[in-house]
């Protein structure tokens, strides 16, 4: 069957056709749907793990039992799992194991922009596939499982956002006919990574011996790369060659089609590189331009090869010729050719419109429980001059205008330790950390434990909406359910608070006065305090048609009473409110208002009332 599907679905199909038995992951754009689409695969176990390191460790457990497994994550997750990667590269795997590490060049949905090929290959020395299209990503996953078993190494697929989020017509393939029966055999000289002397290696320290084996493996990985159908050479006119890694190849082909030209092209889809193929391509060229997302990884490798082989080819790329950040486009290729004098004429000026489009900053949905909480926190923080650290999730939009509450966002779980660090300086201001529930279970809990153990003086606000909303409502350890919708124990943050011996309060964020009072008390206390703001995600519960999460309180608007003070906008910022500059008054858009009544609680003049 042929279907028009998303790259992420194509990758899931590839894994299922390869007979994957265990799929784990933690949600994160652009990778999330790969896990979703593995459901409800026959005879596959799928889970949302608590974080990416856990996901990778789970997959390794399955591989040790000789079963095919796959762990899925976005680049930040790969960072988080790096410690484990730096061990599994030494030990190798048993059952075929694939790590999918999705990068987000352009950072459309990420806190940072990076290239995990560096972590995985340059640093971890693992072999990797970099797909050019969704269809190729599907084929590569299948190949990755096969090679993983042949080489006894974990293989990595590194799709970029434009692979994950592209759609194409994809054909179903045959499911591999594999009989996999779980079987565990202890092999301690491999799987006990410890500083002991290894008799098998003449008494060498085991980590050094395994390091040597990994280095020796590289020749085998290169041999497979040399034969791989994902690397190929295309002939063309002139002595300037174009090297396309993954999506870079797609951009080159599009540019060639737009220009109606044909250049010498080297298509690369693997790391390590097919060294012989690369050398024979470079030999006849004066210049080679490398198109890759997003760091100059292959570019530097080519420079090294030229040096070692004494080739006088000029290698250009993202180091200092192409833009060093962001996504590649066919236009990037055309521009590079123009700079080389290979495309005539100046840049075709697309006339910019006279007016510019106002930016859309992200905010919470109308009716979101985070809105009442953030408003209450802003009011208290202002009064108490609190320093506020933030974390990642729907609530993080509280750091943008109009709320501008959190002063920091780094990576998952950073809010609590950063708050402790601020407080430990002895600063004369209360310190507050804001963190979501999925983020808390991902890597926030340890920061809290650390704060308690080291007697920090901070207030932790836990935004408990019982789901991972930002990435599309995945369950987490506090949700009381899992990916199969089975009922599980909802791990209770207040019981965690109790176990840690810290003062814990639970508030309803739709009751702003109560929330403000609880947060004020918490800030005044010595030591670590926890405030749990509890109400389900409004969007999710309305979509599911669940019981109303707040009593509807329809608001009335009396423009006569409005003096245009904008407090409702600055301190609450519901998108159903808008300011009419001509009249200097605020109005409610009743098409969007969901009658949460919060704006009436904020307006002191009775212009908005219930």
């Amino acid at each position: 069957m042929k279907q028009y599907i998303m790259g992420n679905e194509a990758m899931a199909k590839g894994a299922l056709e390869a007979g994957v038995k265990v799929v784990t992951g933690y949600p994160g754009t652009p990778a999330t749907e790969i896990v979703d689409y593995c459901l409800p695969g026959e005879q596959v176990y799928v889970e949302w793990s608590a974080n990416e390191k856990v996901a990778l460790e789970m997959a390794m457990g399955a591989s040790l039992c000789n079963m095919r497994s796959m762990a899925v994550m976005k680049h930040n997750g790969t960072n988080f799992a790096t410690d484990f990667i730096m061990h599994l590269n030494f030990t190798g795997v048993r059952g075929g194991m694939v790590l999918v590490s999705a990068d987000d060049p352009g950072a459309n949905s990420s806190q940072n922009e990076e290239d995990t090929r560096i972590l995985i290959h340059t640093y971890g020395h693992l072999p990797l596939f970099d797909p050019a299209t969704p269809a190729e990503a599907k084929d590569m996953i299948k190949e990755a499982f096969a090679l993983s078993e042949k080489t006894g190494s974990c293989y990595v697929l590194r799709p970029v956002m434009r692979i994950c989020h592209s759609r194409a017509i994809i054909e179903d393939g045959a499911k591999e006919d594999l009989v996999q029966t779980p079987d565990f055999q202890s092999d301690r000289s491999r799987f006990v990574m410890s500083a002991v002397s290894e008799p098998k290696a003449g008494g060498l320290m085991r980590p050094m011996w395994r390091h040597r084996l990994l280095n020796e493996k590289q020749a085998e990985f290169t041999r497979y790369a040399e034969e791989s159908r994902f690397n190929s050479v295309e002939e063309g006119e002139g002595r300037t060659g174009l090297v396309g890694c993954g999506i870079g190849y797609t951009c080159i082909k599009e540019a060639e089609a737009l220009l109606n030209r044909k250049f010498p092209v080297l298509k690369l889809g693997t790391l390590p590189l097919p060294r012989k193929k690369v050398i024979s391509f470079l030999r006849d060229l004066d210049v080679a331009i490398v198109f890759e997302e997003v760091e100059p990884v292959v570019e530097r490798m080519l420079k090294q090869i030229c040096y070692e082989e004494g080739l006088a080819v000029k290698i250009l790329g993202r180091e200092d010729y192409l833009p060093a950040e962001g996504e590649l486009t066919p236009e990037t290729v055309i521009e590079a050719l123009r700079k080389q004098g290979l495309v005539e004429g100046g840049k075709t000026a697309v006339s910019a419109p006279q007016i510019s489009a106002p930016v859309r900053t992200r905010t919470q949905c109308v009716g979101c429980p985070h809105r009442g909480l953030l408003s209450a926190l802003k009011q208290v923080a202002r009064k108490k001059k609190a320093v506020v650290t933030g974390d990642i999730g729907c609530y993080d939009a509280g750091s943008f205008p109009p709320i501008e509450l959190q002063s920091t966002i780094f990576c998952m779980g950073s809010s609590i330790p950063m708050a402790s660090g601020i407080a430990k300086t002895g600063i004369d201001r209360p310190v507050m950390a804001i963190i979501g529930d999925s983020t808390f279970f991902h890597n926030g809990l340890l920061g809290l434990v650390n704060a308690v153990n080291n007697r920090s003086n901070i207030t932790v606000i836990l935004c408990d909406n019982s789901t991972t909303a930002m990435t599309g409502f995945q369950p987490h350890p506090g949700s009381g359910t899992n990916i199969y919708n089975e009922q599980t124990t909802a791990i209770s943050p207040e019981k965690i608070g109790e176990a840690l011996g810290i003062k814990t309060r639970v508030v309803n964020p739709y009751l702003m006065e109560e929330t403000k009072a609880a947060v004020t008390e918490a800030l005044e206390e010595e030591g670590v305090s926890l405030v749990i703001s509890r109400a389900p995600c409004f969007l999710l519960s309305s979509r599911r048609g669940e019981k109303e999460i707040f009593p509807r309180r329809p608001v009335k608007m009396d423009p006569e009473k409005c003096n245009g003070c904008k407090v409702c906008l600055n301190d609450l910022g519901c998108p159903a409110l808008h300011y009419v500059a001509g009249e200097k008054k605020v109005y409610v858009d009743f098409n969007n208002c969901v009658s949460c009544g919060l704006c009436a609680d904020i307006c002191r003049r009775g212009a908005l009332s219930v």
Partner: protein
Amino acid sequence: MNLNIIICGVGGQGNLLASVAIANYAMKKGFNVVGTETIGAAQRGGSVVSHLRISDGPIYASTVPDGTADILLGFEPVEALRHIKKLNPEGIYIINVEKVPTVLCNMGLDQYPDLEQIMAALQDVSSHGYAINAAEKARELGGAIMTNVVLLGALSSVSDFFDRDEFIEVLKKIISPKVLEKNLKAFEEGRALIAS
């Protein structure tokens, strides 16, 4: 034959369904299709743009190159403005005139351009365009959620590539039977908005 389409709007307007419908139609006609979306945080009112490329030959990049969109389907005026550089000077645009103000415009901190200015900017690029109130029509028919289908109706009547009956067959496959009838009405109304 090559047809590049840009569909732009804000999260929650259903522009993904629109692009899937068009892609399925093109597939049914035996064409190759490639597309992509830039989603951001779709639920919370961020910009959402879908690119669609249809051809009887090979297609490489999933993004529509600048200046080559044969059709720009704007679910929201400012979003159409944001992607104006995609529009081919010979291309057609269809704009749903109902505004979704930005957070900063709501606060009076940023100015939402006048609709006339936006339409004039589009006119500067191409002289073939339509401004329709698809959202209002959808609400009349029972819900703003059908705005996307009204716009699909409009789209289906501006290009020879689309055949009304065959497009309806595609919609029947992807829209839930419970709401199909209303949606088919919305589709016809979209066609009527262009005709009038």
